[in-house]
């Protein structure tokens, strides 16, 4: 009897291992959770301050929760949200007028919730009747995914094919572990865009398809070879599974907090190791400590060499590998206390550092459009202060947008200028700047004198409202 049970059990186990769902079944069951997302990308218009040029776009959406949570590529909103993310720098407003078209043709309005540039996903929420339950995809962990595994991709074709679904069988041809784990499929050309669903042979969702980030700068050796690639990059479910449970919400200011140490770094090359007599092959040399960052508070210094963080020894010998440390820091929750092993002037030190979340980026800063003068100002956020190496207490407001045909534009105001004085009154911060400008807007003065700072140079801009 016992042996019979074990045989049955083994049989079930075997069938589980060997079982591959028929592709048609996989397609049909996943199809209903793939939707077409249309929206308007709002590019800041340089002809009218405070207004946007709308561009209609389409993306593939994946329903990830029954109440109508849809996951799309993060490129729906190409703006950096914090100091450690590179989400792009296009002047863009939050995307609007989302519509989600389901496989059955039913269409629902939706709104933008938030995005995460590390996970490269964004979330939108459908406005469907409260009791509606939508067919959704559940992602599974991918630890046992291997090269040679058969997979399926489900995408939507472009507009001239009526966004019809495209189902393709592939094989995983490569798995890249660093700087982030990714699966690659060879010889691939994408259909509509990023965001397609990736399923294993059992029909379980294991990841999403990424857009290829084309970088034409060819800064690094080998960039040109990379440019010629035609791989499908797949983000494994681990990148975003936690976000599906607790999606970022821009309106409620619940953004995914990114842990931040506050340094710039380079690798400890073998030559530097020998010259500086460092007792370890590889490490991270700190070459900038941002003021008031966790690193600055822990009194880390330029020239310090980080040998290890907690139990992870840093064996980094090339600048290309420094992303490892960045990812390590990002893997900690913000507010976590970490232990750094530091080499400084021949001695080993242990430093405890309490991480914080990365400063928010200018793209998220509060804005104040001044269409009468022809510009939009924003808070001078830390990312700009750090980027331009300005003193922390630099007074002023950041010029985010300029209408070239406006009084300010004609006067020569430029995007990126920092306005420090208006008519002789110093602007300390954003609130103060708004007050001063508002007071002027109701005044009768026809000409204003702006003292601006740009690239460490001051100059004067005359805004003549009669122009």
């Amino acid at each position, binding site marked *: 009897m016992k042996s019979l049970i074990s045989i049955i059990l083994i049989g079930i186990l075997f069938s589980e291992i060997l079982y591959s769902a028929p592709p048609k079944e996989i397609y049909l069951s996943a199809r209903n959770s793939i939707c077409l997302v249309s929206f308007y990308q709002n590019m800041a218009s340089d002809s009218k301050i405070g207004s946007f040029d709308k561009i209609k776009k389409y993306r593939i959406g994946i329903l990830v929760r029954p109440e109508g949570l849809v996951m799309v590529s993060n490129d729906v909103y190409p703006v950096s949200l914090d100091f450690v993310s590179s989400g792009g720098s296009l002047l863009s407003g939050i995307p609007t007028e989302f519509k989600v078209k389901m496989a059955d043709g039913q269409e629902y309005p939706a709104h933008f919730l938030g995005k995460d540039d590390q996970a490269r996903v964004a979330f939108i929420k459908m406005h469907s009747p409260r009791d509606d339950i939508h067919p959704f995809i559940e992602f599974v962990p991918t630890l046992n995914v291997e090269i040679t595994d058969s997979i399926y991709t489900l995408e939507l074709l472009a507009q001239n094919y009526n966004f019809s679904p495209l189902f393709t069988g592939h094989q995983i041809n490569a798995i890249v572990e660093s700087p982030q784990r990714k699966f690659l499929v060879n010889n691939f050309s994408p259909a509509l865009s990023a965001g397609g669903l990736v399923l294993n042979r059992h029909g379980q969702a294991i990841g999403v398809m990424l857009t290829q980030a084309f970088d034409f700068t060819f800064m690094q050796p080998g960039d040109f070879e990379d440019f010629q690639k035609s791989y499908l990059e797949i983000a494994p479910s681990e990148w975003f599974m936690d976000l599906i449970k607790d999606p970022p919400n821009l309106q409620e200011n619940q953004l995914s907090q990114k842990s931040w140490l506050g340094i710039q770094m380079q690798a400890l090359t073998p*030559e530097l190791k*020998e010259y500086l007599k460092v007792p370890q092959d590889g490490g991270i040399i700190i070459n*900038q400590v941002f003021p008031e960052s966790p690193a600055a508070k822990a009194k880390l210094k*330029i020239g310090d060499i980080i040998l290890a963080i907690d139990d992870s020894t840093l064996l980094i010998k090339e600048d290309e590998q420094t992303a490892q440390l960045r990812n390590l820091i990002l893997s900690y929750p913000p507010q976590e206390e970490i232990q750094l092993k530091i080499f400084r002037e021949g001695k080993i030190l242990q430093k405890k550092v309490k991480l914080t979340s990365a400063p928010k980026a200018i793209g998220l800063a509060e804005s104040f459009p001044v269409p009468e003068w022809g510009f939009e100002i924003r808070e001078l956020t830390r990312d700009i202060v750090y980027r331009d190496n300005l003193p922390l207490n630099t007074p002023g407001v950041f010029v985010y947008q300029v209408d070239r045909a406006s009084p300010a534009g004609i006067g020569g105001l430029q995007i990126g200028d920092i306005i420090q004085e208006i008519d002789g009154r110093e602007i300390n911060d954003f609130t103060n700047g708004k007050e001063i400008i508002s007071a002027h807007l109701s005044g009768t003065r026809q000409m204003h004198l702006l003292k601006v700072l740009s*690239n460490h140079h001051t100059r*004067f801009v*005359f805004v003549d409202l009669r122009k």
Partner: protein
Amino acid sequence: MKLVNIFGIHNDMNNHNRKISRYIILGSLILGIILPLTSPAQDLQQRILDARNKVMPALVHIEPVRTVFSTGEKRHALVTGSGFIFSPEGYILTNHHVVENAEKVSCTLYNKKKLSAEIIGSDPSTDVAVIKLNLEEMGDETPPFVELGNSDSLEVGQFVLAMGSPLGLSRSVSMGVISSIDRYFEDSGMMISPYNLWIQTDAAINPGNSGGPLINLEGKVVGINARGVFMAENLGFAIPINLAREVAEKLQLGNSIRRSWIGLELQPVKELREYLDQPELQGVLIANLDPLSPGEKAGMKPGDLLLSINQIPVNANYDEDLPAIRKIITDLPVSQEATLEVWRNGKTRKFSVQPKPEPFIFQTEFECEDWGLVVKSLTRNIFEILGLADYDGVYISAVKNGEAAERAGLQAGDIIRSVNHTPIENLEQFKKVYQTLQEDPPRFAYFEVLRQYSPYFAAIDLHKVRADKSK
């Protein structure tokens, strides 16, 4: 000699006067007969030909062999340009951009003779360069030379000829009028011509006659052709000869021009006048003070209105007025305190400022061959783009792929601030440090460079470099 007789002048100094008188007699005879019969058009044609004939023999075709570093690799590029002899000693005026980074210069004269020339001096700020023919190669002949005119008396609408020598033996002439005598190119960080206005002409100026003379109908040089505008028609620009003459005189004395510096960046006063509703306001607005500059040390501030320099009143209504004021400042004697009067908050104040030599000197690039590294001295352009806080260091203009510097992580665009803990102030000093390390190399050369406001550290294993080289 036939050619000489046709052109008739300056070619043979001994026969000079006799020839002139012969021409005058001949000329008056011809004129006496023809003049009553000629139309104004024929008269103009004759004047053009006469002017051409006066200058043509002094035109020089210049072929500099230029050293360029493309991705750190040393290459020689052959470029061409024009120039003109302006003295019997064989001095030639041309553009800085024609002979920039040239190691050797060869010149083809009107008589097909090819002579070598040495670079006497070159000034990027005005795009003027002086080179000198090696006259020994010419034998007993004295070179023909041009007469320099007066560019201050030019008038808009006046006829001019742009001459050049685009190819070895060919000479070209194009005609036009002076379109403008006060063209200003906005200082867009490049500071292409901070000290002068340009002569604009519709006579065709192209790469071939760049460096050649712009002449009036008396055959006198009034400008040096400097640049045309790509894809634009009838826009040529020339450097006024009065400025070129002054620069040339300084270049003939020393190798480069060191201007005086007090560190002011200027803006016209016109809008401030409207803003303050004070139409009588004169002066020039100080927009910015260079860090660590004499002006900053003296206590001058952005927003001050500069009224006079050593009691010479200054006034800039428009951008076009700025070069002349910049020039007054750069011509101040370095050793003497200057008095600058400014207007601040309704009151006038005087500042005593001791000008310094400007912190930027033009020098040719320097190649550290063993390290695969090319450096040059800082320029104002580099200083402004990188937002530097001081004037120390040398700029890495190229690194050679696969060589020590590149492997150590150094990049083009970095500023070397110290080598083996010796602070690097300028190119001269860097060369000495490099030399010392070459003669007696320690194990490592350790660099501290500045990259986007942050330090970057790099070490080159000099013993390994030496071992690799001796292989």
